[in-house]
């Protein structure tokens, strides 16, 4: 793994060495105040915690005991910094490892050789596409190198400080700045890498259905609903149960949960699938071990105007719940449910939460479109027409996670292998480790398939 990071890193090190030399010229007994003089005065009060220390020193820079106190303060700050650098370093390491650097290099090399091909410009559109893909990859490569450079710079400062018998405030401040900047870039990078789907930024609609198995499964569906509501609240998303159909004895037959907030869909879309529970049935007097299933479907919560697809009327089968009998004036039932089926794909949605039929129809149509868009994206189809109907038949798809309450406690994701025995926290909405593990897993898969393609 040969990288071009040595260049900028060397330059950086040089700069630091320069400062280091300067530092060495400094008489060791000089109060700290002098050193911080190059800092512009207006920034003193707010730029960092060091500054306030400096002020303290300024007020009583003649007192020796006070100077000791100051260095103690500084040591604390230094330890914090060192810890931050260690964390950032691990994070950079992790991101670089999961980004598949070798694959990335290989891909860049492939595209570059393509671009030098004599026939490259024969197909202009294709050539443009290739070049923009190449640029994207190079950008990502550059970012990954930058992260390494930045963290190494910070590490160098920490090391230098450790070796020296006194502390250079401006240098530590620089390291702090680097780490702050780096963490921001890493956050941004992670987000764009892991959540780069076209709808990832949107809110989400989570549809939970109890599987076969009566009350146990319906109770399980209710537990899942609660889990996702808790998760949403922890993320400070706005959650709203818009539709719920209660089970006969306990639990729910189905529920629709809307989660509003940035990236809600990106995070939670991986929850789609069948969730399996193993426990002692609370609804069975013998307390037998019972396995139940519930399905989770996730769709982006798209604003009406954002669903920019038109579906031909003849492709839609819209059915309304019949009030029964003669209808019209003869019957008055507040039954306004609407079901819309997309005939070519067999994808169907039902909407019951609104109080009028028209409102249910409008909402059902938005939901159907969102669902079709997601399926189209999964199948890499550019148009709804291209969706292969046979491939969308499986209702909730594969089993994705097991929740074992008995005879031992374990939550394990089938796809990522991520597991925990703290089942209570998971049911309380601590889903982030599972979600992150899945996003990484998905990313790695996408990278791998990008290379083989």
């Amino acid at each position: 793994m040969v990288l071009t990071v040595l260049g900028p890193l060397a330059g950086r090190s040089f700069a630091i060495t320069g400062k280091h030399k300067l530092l060495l010229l400094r008489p060791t007994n000089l109060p700290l105040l002098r050193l911080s003089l190059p800092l512009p005065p207006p920034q003193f009060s707010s730029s960092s915690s060091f500054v306030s220390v400096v002020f303290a020193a300024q007020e009583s820079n003649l007192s020796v005991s006070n100077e000791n106190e100051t260095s103690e303060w500084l040591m604390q700050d230094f330890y914090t910094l060192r810890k931050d650098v260690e964390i950032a370093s691990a994070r950079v390491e992790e991101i670089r490892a999961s980004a598949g650097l070798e694959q990335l290099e290989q891909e860049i090399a492939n595209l570059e050789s393509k671009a030098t091909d004599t026939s490259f410009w024969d197909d202009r559109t294709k050539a443009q596409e290739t070049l923009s893909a190449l640029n994207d990859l190079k950008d990502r490569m550059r970012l990954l190198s930058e992260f390494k450079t930045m963290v190494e710079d910070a590490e160098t400062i920490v090391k230098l400080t450790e070796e020296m018998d006194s502390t250079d405030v401006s240098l530590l401040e620089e390291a702090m700045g680097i780490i702050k900047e780096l963490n921001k870039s890493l956050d941004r990078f992670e987000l764009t890498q892991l959540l780069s789907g076209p709808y990832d930024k949107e809110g989400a609609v989570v549809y939970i259905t109890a599987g076969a198995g009566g009350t146990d499964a319906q109770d399980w569906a209710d537990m899942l609903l609660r889990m996702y509501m808790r998760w949403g609240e922890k993320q400070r998303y706005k959650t709203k149960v818009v539709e719920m159909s209660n089970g006969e004895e306990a639990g729910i037959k189905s529920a629709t949960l809307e989660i509003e907030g940035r990236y809600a869909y990106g995070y939670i879309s991986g929850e789609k699938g069948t969730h399996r529970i193993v426990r002692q049935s609370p609804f069975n007097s013998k307390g037998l071990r019972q396995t139940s299933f519930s399905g989770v479907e996730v769709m982006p919560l798209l604003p009406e105007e954002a669903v920019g697809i038109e579906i031909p009327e003849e492709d839609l089968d819209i059915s309304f719940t019949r009030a029964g009998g003669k209808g019209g004036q003869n019957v008055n039932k507040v039954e306004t449910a609407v079901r819309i089926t997309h005939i070519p794909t067999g994808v169907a949605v039902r909407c019951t939460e609104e109080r009028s039929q028209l409102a249910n129809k409008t909402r059902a149509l938005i939901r159907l479109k969102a669902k079709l868009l997601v399926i189209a994206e999964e199948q890499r189809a550019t148009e709804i027409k291209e969706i292969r109907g046979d491939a969308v038949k499986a209702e909730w798809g594969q089993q994705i996670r097991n929740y074992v309450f008995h005879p031992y406690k374990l939550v394990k994701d089938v796809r990522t292998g991520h597991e925990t025995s703290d089942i209570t926290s998971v049911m309380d909405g601590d889903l982030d480790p599972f979600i992150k593990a899945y996003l990484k897993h998905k990313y790695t898969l996408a990278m791998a398939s990008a290379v083989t393609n």
Partner: protein
Amino acid sequence: MIRIFPSLRFTSLLSAAKPLCSYSPAKSSTETNSLSITPKTPLFLRTPSHATSLSEVWKWHDWAKDLASSVEESSTNSEDVLDSVILHRELKWLIEDSIVDDPLVILHRSEIADNGEKNVKLRASLEELYDLWRQRIEKRRPFQYVVGCEYWRDLVLCVEEGVLIPRPETELIVDMVEELVTRDEWFKKGFWADLGTGSGAIAIGIAKVLGSRGRVIATDLSPVAVAVAGKNVQRYGLEGMIEVREGSWFEPLKGLEGKLVGLVSNPPYIPSDDIPGLQAEVGKHEPKLALDGGIDGTDSLLHLCYGASQMLQRGGFFVFETNGEKQSKMIVDYMMSNDLKDCFSDLKIVSDFAGINRFVTGFRL
């Protein structure tokens, strides 16, 4: 400003059709005036002047849920039963309409780490909520009367006893008009009439699709309906487009003979003999005036057919709701019979979403 005309009895050319107009005599004795009627305020528009502890509301909610769940066991008549799934949904809506706070504090109690000491603001006293839900289940009072409103298309309409609750099937009338006026701008310019408007639902729906130049006259014989329709028109700020007039069918339209571009109506069409067997919510609570269509249910419809021939201008459109199947066929036959021969073209029977031949439409020749 809504101009509500007190009932005036004309001796118009339309009085020739009097035998078909079964409601005129009822009016002659007392001179009712819709202006003296103040429509009830629906629950969701009331001021939240009641504060109750959350735990008391939870107690009510538990009671209401139990009552809703118990209905199926106690009922013996399989034809006309309350559906507990629908009742649970209605209960949720009742809460939405009566509580100021997020209804979730009631619906998802298990999610709230609260012992219920907190006060919530209600738009009705807890006592009234107990009473309302009891009326819903024991008296079979229609849910829409309980909350005082009906969600219809994209509208929320005030309704109360004495006014027919608009049905989802009727939403289609507005769809048909919308399709027509989008296709042909001519229909946007002239007068439309909605006869027997009830809550004003169709008139408001049509006014909204006509655009700013639209003019709709909505009539009803019932002073309560006229008052409620007026209130609904006002709520949607359509006073400039819709005029609500009190009177029997075409009577309030004097002077507009041959001038209407459109005529719509959902008249009473249930045969008298069917009335006693209706679903309790309908038969026991909704106004007979808006349901009972005479022996075969066509009394008002036939009168409307005749009136359409007089009131519509050439090319004018009409749509009437019917009891379906046989009845719609009868209406079409009548319109092609000797009396009205050569009056109409493109007569069509349009079915509702349940596949029942619900509507008759056509154009004045």
